[in-house]
């Protein structure tokens, strides 16, 4: 018995040592990522939440606890509703455009046609162009005197002579939405393209046998198969679009008259303009909380629907 026990005990001990060793290696390998996440994500988030309950005076470097005063001030700010409306218009317009154009482009590049690989590369270009170049490019095309788009709109009688869409509140918002759609649709396109390639051809063949025409095949076969990709895309694109600052700031600076000032520009102006870091932190926390709540509700809602 003793002889048979010893090898089993030794084997278990060896197994424990191996498991412990694997755990140590695992922790060691994960440690750099954890350290980076804690340092660059967790700490700033926690500090932003802390700051949002303080009045920070950058001139004297002093902080004063003010409780929920910054949050109350945000809701009572005369800019709250106009900025919220701008954020909603910017986000909804951008998302609808990105998804419509992205899906259309994905269907096109999914076809087995000559030259489609080249088209695919061209369609990806907007996503890889640096945003500063893209902003200058759009500003140039929308210039009231020399811009090709403004010139066309003036020629069609939709704009006054030497007028630019960027100088009109509705025109400026429409312009930045179009620029954002152009910038961001390739991401949607690539995700949808990958999902399209996973759809079994048998489903289309069965639909054809049942007499479904192209539109019905799209509606009853393609769209249901894109559901999972769409759920993921919506969460990602909503978060990225609502928080997208660079493009809109570089094209309009939030103007004219605040017509394109959305939530991230508000945060930026309070922090870097008025140096109200506590107030800006409260605005950032509100935006983060709203996005997190929206994502949770949306994903839970989708899961509930799936379960039913």
């Amino acid at each position, binding site marked *: 018995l003793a002889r048979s026990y010893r090898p089993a005990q030794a084997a278990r001990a060896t197994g424990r040592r191996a498991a412990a060793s694997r755990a140590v290696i695992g922790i060691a390998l994960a440690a750099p990522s954890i350290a980076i996440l804690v340092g660059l994500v967790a700490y700033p988030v926690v500090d932003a939440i802390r700051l949002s309950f303080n009045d920070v*005076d*950058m*001139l*004297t*470097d002093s902080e004063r606890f003010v409780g929920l005063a910054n949050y109350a001030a945000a809701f009572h700010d005369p800019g709250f509703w106009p900025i919220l409306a701008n954020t909603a218009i910017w986000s909804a317009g951008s998302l609808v455009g990105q998804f419509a154009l992205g899906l259309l482009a994905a269907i096109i590049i999914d076809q087995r046609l000559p030259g489609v690989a080249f088209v695919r590369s061209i369609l990806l270009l907007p996503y890889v162009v640096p945003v500063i170049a893209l902003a200058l490019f759009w500003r140039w095309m929308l*210039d*009231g*005197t020399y811009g090709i788009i*403004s010139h066309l709109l003036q020629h069609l009688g939709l704009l*006054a*002579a*030497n*007028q*630019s869409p*960027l*100088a*009109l*509140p509705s025109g*400026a918002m429409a312009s930045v939405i179009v620029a954002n759609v152009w910038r961001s649709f390739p991401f949607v396109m690539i995700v949808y393209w990958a999902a399209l390639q996973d759809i079994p051809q048998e489903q289309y063949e069965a639909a054809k046998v049942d007499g479904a025409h192209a539109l019905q095949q799209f509606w009853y076969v393609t769209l249901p198969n894109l559901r999972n990709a769409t759920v993921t895309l919506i969460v990602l694109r909503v978060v990225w679009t609502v928080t997208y600052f660079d493009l809109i700031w570089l094209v*309009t*600076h*939030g*103007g*004219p*008259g*605040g017509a394109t000032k959305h939530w991230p520009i508000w945060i930026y*102006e309070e922090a*870097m*303009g*008025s*140096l*109200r870091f506590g107030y800006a932190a409260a605005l950032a926390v509100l935006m983060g909380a709203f996005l997190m709540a929206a994502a949770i509700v949306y994903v839970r809602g989708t899961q509930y629907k799936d379960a039913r």
Partner: protein
Amino acid sequence: MLEFDEGNGARFPRRLPPLNRLAACVALAAGLLGSAPAARAEELELSVWSNLTTAAQADVIQRQVNACLKEMPGVSAKFETVPFGSMYTRLITSMKKGDVPNVMNTLEGAVAYLQAKGAVVPVDDVIDQLGRGDFLASYLAAVSKSGKVWGLPDWALHQEVWYRKDLFQAAGLAVPKSWDELLAAANKLNKKPDQYGFAVPMDRALVAPQTYFQIFYSAGGTIFDPKTGEYAFGDKRAEAVAAMKFMLALYKEASPPASIEWSWSGYREAFVKGQVAMTNEWGAVVGIAQEQNPKMLDQMGVFAFPGPSADKPAPAALNGGYYYLVGKSTDAKVAASKKLLLCMYKPERVAERAISRPIFAVPATHSAFESAAYQSNDIVKRFKPEIDYIFNNVMSHWYRYGMEAGLNPLAGQIEATTFIGDAMQNAALGKITAEQAVDQIDQQLRFQISLLGG
């Protein structure tokens, strides 16, 4: 523990176990790091920042810093251009680190901000050594507070009206002496849509306040009372509303509609390419005309922005300047910084910095302005009447917004925020009246002052 081989210095003995090798590495690195301060003990490194990102200007400053450092053994400098757009962010982070630049070349707004933070030292001693009377008094006044001067004036940002001499002559127009004459001249020069009389740019960041305050100052308004330092914008509501109404009239009658969102490049290129006949400007149009339309150079003239009535010239313009300030640091670094500036303020060096962007930059010292180095520059010679006019008439009476009574960090807040631009643009779009726009500006100015503890 370490073995040595000839020519290659230290190497690890093959027998050393891995952990010991690691320990030896750490020890070696620590030894090397530990010895570094000793080797550099006598070296003093100054950080030198400039907001001037234009290569022609930044290169001259860097070259001069390097030349002066050759006369200062044991002192080196790390030169960095910091764009205006990110300057306040950089200053905040540098102050948090306790690492304010030793020497900084910047606008009054940053001087005021750093002075309010107690991050700079007065430079009166440097000014006295160079000769206080050599500096234009208006530029010293702009950076004075508590009886001390906090920045060395380098060159002037000057704002006046640049106009097309050929178009004025063809239309039989004289230089306008009042707002009404200016508006009438602008209307007479209108040939829409090919040519507009006067550009009124209103980009909400930076440009809008420059446009509005030029007119507001010409009407005799100020944000603070220059004598008492008390907030005065509310008391000057009549002037503020009149200035806003005049600006809106000029925009609606004589400016391209898209100028509501024009920044500097928009109105400058419009002037240089002949789309507008007049524009309120800092003189950068000369450099742009050289690059884009040299024929225009012969047609360009200047006059000071007029006041509301012809019997009284505008009491002040919106100007500004570039200054060198000295950051608070160790005594040795402050002394080295001041020595560096004394070297950089030789008249020919001040002149060289100004002609790195001629006309746009006009020296803020008499000696540099009169020096052969400045006066012999081709562009300066070509625009001598205009430059003399600017030096004698525009650079003597001016304010920077919020600094009418001396240094005030409100100037930085105005530069970093957009509330003035929003009010102007909304008034120009017809969403609010001129009175409402002025009231919004008044309310926001008071709010910003309260944030600054005023």
